[in-house]
């Protein structure tokens, strides 16, 4: 080969090559910058959420003397007794010397209004306490808790601008110095349902609600979705009708989720009156079963499309091999095609489920936004779900709910990560080479 670098053509070619390499490098850097900025935003997001959520994991309790010697309290009525007065007297005893109605009311407010309920459950579990005096840790009010966590904002502001007055600060500091205040793991948050009081509000109701709803969604959308995909891919004739169905499935995947909520409201809750009878209707409002059905309808297109893609990607040679030794079409599909398509089907299902887990809009329309204090005990009982709970808490004005909101987001993310982990595990389990 002759050296061309000195000829005009050679110089031009050198220049073109240099330009090509430069373009390659440029593209590489742009890609790297995109990835890094995405990673940065992710870190910022997680940082703020975790930072906001951490205070919600602990709560401050105050030790107050509880007098259970009153004759009205017996082992029989321990579960229904009104403990408010006992708690009240306890806090008066813990901070002695407070006189005057106004100050005493303020002092009472230092303990959570849910303290009496907490005390009731503690006494019910320990009936041997009845007739004795005990020192019991009860939750502080949310403002006192926020003050102790330094989340009240600027304490040096004029008293009128604060929710926590000077005298309350004095009492809290005093109790703290006496060692009567203890920061504990916030078990209330993880075991209680919703409440108007930030300190009594828990996520458990929403967790159970989400679990029940997703269970309904999973049980409905996976068999129907995978079945539809198998039929359309392997058995259905390719004609205008199946083409029309295919277009509709693809379009359904793009329908805004709130429309599915309207469908749930119109069909499952209200029913369609057809002149002599009502089609649909009668499903329980705000219940996991109804929410699950609506989410299943919403998830179906995702599951069908992903499953069809997975089935389509199985090499046709596998089908031919099975058919060639006399397997029926059903045998070829279920013995050979489906196992190979399983990883893809699972991935699609988990993506659909993750979408359903984070869905709020359709559930608002079927009443799952209702303020539900009790933990749902079944599919037909009123329930709410995690994203709706986050939505509601984000709307509440109390500062105490800010940490709860962040903590609930964290739990929702944990749910998602757990689901993805299961998907990855299942995929590795099913993955086979061919």
């Amino acid at each position, binding site marked *: 080969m002759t050296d061309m670098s000195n000829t005009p053509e050679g110089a031009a070619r050198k220049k073109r090559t240099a330009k090509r390499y430069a373009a390659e490098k440029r593209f590489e850097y742009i890609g790297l910058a995109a990835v890094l900025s995405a990673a940065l935003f992710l870190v910022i997001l997680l940082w703020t959420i975790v930072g906001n959520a951490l205070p919600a994991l602990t709560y401050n309790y105050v030790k107050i003397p509880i007098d259970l010697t009153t004759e009205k309290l017996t082992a029989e009525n321990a579960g229904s007794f009104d403990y408010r007065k006992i708690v009240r007297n306890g806090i008066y005893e813990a901070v002695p010397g407070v006189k005057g109605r106004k100050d005493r009311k303020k002092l009472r407010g230092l303990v959570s209004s849910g303290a009496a309920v907490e005390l009731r459950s503690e006494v019910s579990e320990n009936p041997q306490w009845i007739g004795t005096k005990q020192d019991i840790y009860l939750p502080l009010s949310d403002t006192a808790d926020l003050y102790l966590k330094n989340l009240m904002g600027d304490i040096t502001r004029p008293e009128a601008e604060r929710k926590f007055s000077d005298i309350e600060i004095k009492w809290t500091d005093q109790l703290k110095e006496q060692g009567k205040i203890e920061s504990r793991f916030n078990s209330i948050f993880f075991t209680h349902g919703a409440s108007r009081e930030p300190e009594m509000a828990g996520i458990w109701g929403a967790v159970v609600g989400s679990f029940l709803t997703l269970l309904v969604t999973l049980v409905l959308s996976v068999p129907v979705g995978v079945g539809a995909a198998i039929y359309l891919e392997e058995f259905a*004739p*390719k004609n205008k009708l199946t083409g029309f169905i295919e277009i509709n499935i693809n379009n359904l995947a793009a329908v805004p989720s709130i429309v599915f909520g309207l469908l749930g409201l119109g069909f499952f809750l209200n029913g369609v009156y057809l002149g002599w009878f009502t089609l649909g209707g009668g499903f329980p409002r705000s219940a996991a079963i109804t929410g699950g059905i609506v989410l299943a309808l919403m998830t179906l297109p995702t599951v069908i499309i992903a499953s069809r893609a997975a089935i389509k990607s199985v*090499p046709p*040679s*596998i*089908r*031919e*091999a*099975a*058919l*060639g*030794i*006399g*397997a*029926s079409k059903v*045998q070829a599909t279920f*013995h*050979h095609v489906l196992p*190979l398509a399983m990883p893809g089907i699972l991935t699609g299902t988990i993506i659909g489920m993750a979408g359903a887990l984070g869905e709020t809009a359709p559930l608002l329309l079927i009443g799952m936004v209702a303020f539900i204090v009790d933990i749902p005990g079944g599919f037909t009982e009123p329930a709410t779900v995690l994203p709706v709970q986050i939505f509601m808490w984000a709307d509440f004005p109390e500062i105490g709910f800010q940490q709860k909101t962040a903590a609930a987001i964290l739990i929702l993310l944990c749910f998602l990560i757990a689901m993805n982990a299961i998907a990855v595990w299942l995929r590795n389990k099913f993955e*086979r*080479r*061919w």
Partner: protein
Amino acid sequence: MSATKTQSNDTNTAKIACSDVHVFYADKEAIKGVDLNIKEKQVTALIGPSGCGKSTFLRCINRMNDTIDICRVTGNIQLDGQDIYAPEVNVVDLRADVGMVFQKPNPFPKSIFENVAYGPRIHGLASSKADMANIVEQSLIRAGLWEEVKDRLDQPGTGLSGGQQQRLCIARAIAVSPSVILMDEPCSALDPIATSIVEELIDELRQNYTIVIVTHSMQQAARVSQETAFFHLGEIVETGATEEIFTNPKDPRTESYITGRIG
């Protein structure tokens, strides 16, 4: 019909008798009226240039074309005197009797044992576990693979070499005890050594099975087959004894193809 019959096969001794077979892909006629008699326990080679319809014709014999939506077959194909396209014929039983080996080795992504055992299992051919093990062993022995895999039957069939995979596919086909084996260019994905092993195997299998093999290798057709049919543009140009066709072709097109002028 422009096909020139150089030798009239006796229909009575034919294992498979085809007459006036047409195959259409949608409106396109891929096979234009083929008559062919395939003799029992002989290797019949279907040769011809690419796209001449030899694979399409092969797939008519075990009704594999049924799986293609737009494909339509007319005419008459008889296996042991029974019309295989008759409504009362169960295609599943037909494919058990007429096994197929494909161009690309396509073992199931399962163990070697499972690959061979699958056919007998779905047809209920084994009465016990020992019986099944025996069927698998016999099939692998017949396919000439037993000595190479007997110690690793639980390993994936896809882990074998290309030639071994193809012999595994042959073992899989003979495990359901067919009487006919169709082979669609079984060596086109194999190296010369693996090819020669498979060709020897085909020669041995002739004792027990009727074999129809599609090949684009003239040498292979000459080496393994007793009968040859030359396809051209969807028609059979010439059929006859392999020796006869290769040494003394009657039709000028056959001669052109064999000598390499067309194809």
